């Protein structure tokens, strides 16, 4: 996944801001409490920790952000924040269609 998204920073963030975001993320997800998240955060930080890394990432990044367009979309929003409840008419339509399948 996009390292900027993992660390919750904008692509124009500088070294200091990235480091701060990394330390905060690591504080929240230490290797003991959440090893998966910790690994993701550490990998993300390595990719963009300084200008050279950021340039290399911009030029040569080949990571797939998901397994399919939908998966990419959902993974992006999973990282972005809490999902919003769907409006009632959408829910109604969705559940009725579920009953027919």
């Amino acid at each position, binding site marked *: 996944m*996009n390292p*900027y*998204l993992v660390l919750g920073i*904008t*692509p124009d963030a500088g070294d200091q801001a990235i480091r701060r975001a990394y330390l905060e993320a690591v504080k929240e997800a230490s290797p003991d409490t959440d090893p*998966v998240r910790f690994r993701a955060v550490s990998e993300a930080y390595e990719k963009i920790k300084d*200008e*050279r890394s950021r*340039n*290399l990432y*911009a*030029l*040569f*990044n*080949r*990571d*797939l*952000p*998901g*397994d*399919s*367009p*939908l*998966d*990419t*979309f*959902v*993974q*992006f*929003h*999973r990282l972005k924040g*809490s*999902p*919003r*409840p*769907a*409006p*009632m008419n*959408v*829910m*109604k*339509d*969705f*559940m*009725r*269609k*579920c*009953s*027919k*399948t």
Partner: protein
Amino acid sequence: MGRMHPMDAKKQNQKAPAATGVSDLPQERRIQELLAQRRWRKARDEIKPLCKTDRARYLPLLITANIGLAREMLAKGLVSDARQVLAYLRTIAKPDQLKVLELELAGKAGDYAALVAHSLPQIAGESHKLSEVEQWKLADRLVLSFQPIPDSAPGAVHLAKETAAIHRALEAVSLSQFDGALEAVQPISQSSCFRHWKLFVKGLVAFHRNDRVKARRFFAEIASDTTPGRACQPYMYWLHDGTPPGSQAFPEHAVVLLANLAGEPGIGRLLYLAEFAWRNGDPREMYRLLRKGIEAFPSEKLDSIGAISEFCLHCLFTLPAKMHMQYAEMLHDLLERRASNGSREAQMILRVLCLLFQSDPNPPYLAAQWERFLLLCERLDGPNPQRASLAYGWLGEVLAAPAREDGYDMFPPSARPRLLDSAGAVRALCKSVELDPDNLGAHLRLATLYEQLQRKRERNRLLDAMTRRFADNKQVLILAGERCIERKAFSKGTEYLERALELDRMDPAIPEALVTAGIHQAREFFKRSRADDARRVLDRISSFAVDRADHYLRSRWTMLLRRGLLELFFGDSTQGQALLAEARAASPGIAPYLLLAHILRRLYTPGAPPFDPFTQELEGITKTQADIEQAGILLRILAFIEHRRGAPPLNAAFSLARKFLRASARRPFTRDQARQLGELILPHSRFSPDFGEFIKAILKRDRKDPLFLLYQYQHPSYGAPIEDAEQCRKKLQSIMQEAVRRKDDYTITRVQKELSRLKMTPPDPFDGMFDGEDDEEDDEEDEDEEDFDFEDLKLAEELLQNIFGPMNDRIRKRYDDREEYRPRKARQKKRRKKVNQRPEISPQAAEQSSQPQPASQPERGTPTKPKPGQLKLF
């Protein structure tokens, strides 16, 4: 009811519809078959005329066929057609027979009032007769009506209340009033037929409150064949971090819901279509759809469109070859037709296409496209010399890769390697260095390239510049130091190496380089009759001597030997003799001392005849004092020297070592000594025939020794060759049994490896491989070619050689003939495959490899393997 007369009963039986039984009449049998095959329409058409002749007999069959047809239509979503069939059914069937069908039709048509009208009396009045699943289904209908349930029917009051509570709860969830939602479902009991809806609501609340564990638990408790059980699937998918979706795609309404949850309702349908195209293996359609449907696509922004854009372009790197070529062609067309959605799309496409084709590039085209990409980067994002320098560094690295073999060379290989585009590589790397003078990776790669191209002057100039710019970089200092020594700039070279040593005293490569440089410098001083200077240098490097006798560069005895020989040949011979005597005494054996002395003599006095006093003495002791321990040391010395730069011709040394080895086989030795020697020898085919004597001797003592039987098996020249794979397997299994019996783990591991190699039973490399060569026009040929693999032929040949020994002349000729007349397309394919197999140069890896690496810290005094391009003298 009165009893029926037997004759009447017989008549009745004859007339009874044979809905399930097998009839004697052929027409009826045919109808039964059609019904059993669910070919409802055909069955109906065939029953209709029969029904006219005997209505009582065939009407039930007609009803069955029509009901089946209506159901089939409903399953296909043909609601109005099903309604027509139902209307016809109402004219021929009793209402009771159509209840279920009418309910199904109402469900499909969204006629929830009808559903409620049907369901309510059942669930309210006869719930005790219904199974739990049937109750759930009826409850689902009540909820999905999303209308007030009439509570006038007996027993319907609590149903109406609970349905209303579910409606209120769902409404509250959609308004983010989660407490209200929980409050609404609170009164629904665990025994209620709405309890799965209660769980669903609780799951939704937990989901939106980000309580993933609870949400998962509630959703997991819902029965999967209920509406909430199906409705919770997209929510579950959202919760499963990092879990890839199943092979089955989500239906459109689920994708639309996910888009709504993400706060981007507008993208739902498009996302569904793109997902569908992707899962159907059509990435081109996926890209086209997204490009047409989203104005901002593709984007580099940190939003969902950016993420999807990244997926759509990066998937190129993971698609199967055929698919990625088609997709890449489409993207390339977009570029060439200037049809891209602005410069950003062109920039993004150019980047991935260049990265994609780096493994098999057309150098001028790749360079032009990459520069086009960089121009667009500059135009869109402003100048960024650092990034441009890295980009040019990558281009240089790609162009400096070895050129692929295009067939047999008419001329012998030259000393200079053939590179893809050496001039282009130099140009790109120079540009990289110019754009960012601090780009160490590009400097180092350029220095290596100059070295490869034998452009020593440019290389030296570059190294000088590098030592000024990267004065504190160990890697640069070692490289510059070694190259200075090579061009006999000893003081400068030694200075660089000493600076490197100051930076890292633990790196064994630096003292090794200093010792090598010192010996080289001393030899030059001796040659110029500056014996005192030479001795000063030798004194200086003697501080790097180590106590380990098996370090053939820095051990005391080898340093004494080198110094003694230099004195003997170029300085004070008396002093030389004394030093040699000292070295001899300190050496681990006379034979190693004599062999190394012989090799060094050949190095220091290249014109001298190959045989000398050391050789003579070694030959002399071979007959009388040969032993297995010393033989092992001789082999290690040869292995050490063989790979060093500037090694003298070693044929005579190898011949001496082999004689010594054979002689030591006739002297007493232990099994453990023989095993150690075997591990040393067997990887080197040069000495493997000489090990046969040791194997024979060990097997004479213990004919079931599993390890030595394995050695014998691995080298058929030691024993009788084994004929086929089955025999090989049997032989290995018998060795394994013996090893297991003796609890010999060492041998067990080795036999397991051999057995796993044997699992690929070698095919006949020629059978069927060249069939159908002439069918080049056949459309299916390409498909077949995908599976056709000449590498398999090579592999098979290797395996056969392992089993049967080298190919005999007849087979060799047959193989060569095949090779020569191999179809042109297949030859090209093989070349393509080779190119594809070439490891890709990851820019990051390339950068890292050319970057100063954190010093590996082997034990101090451990000999290091010479790196390519690293100067190693004696």
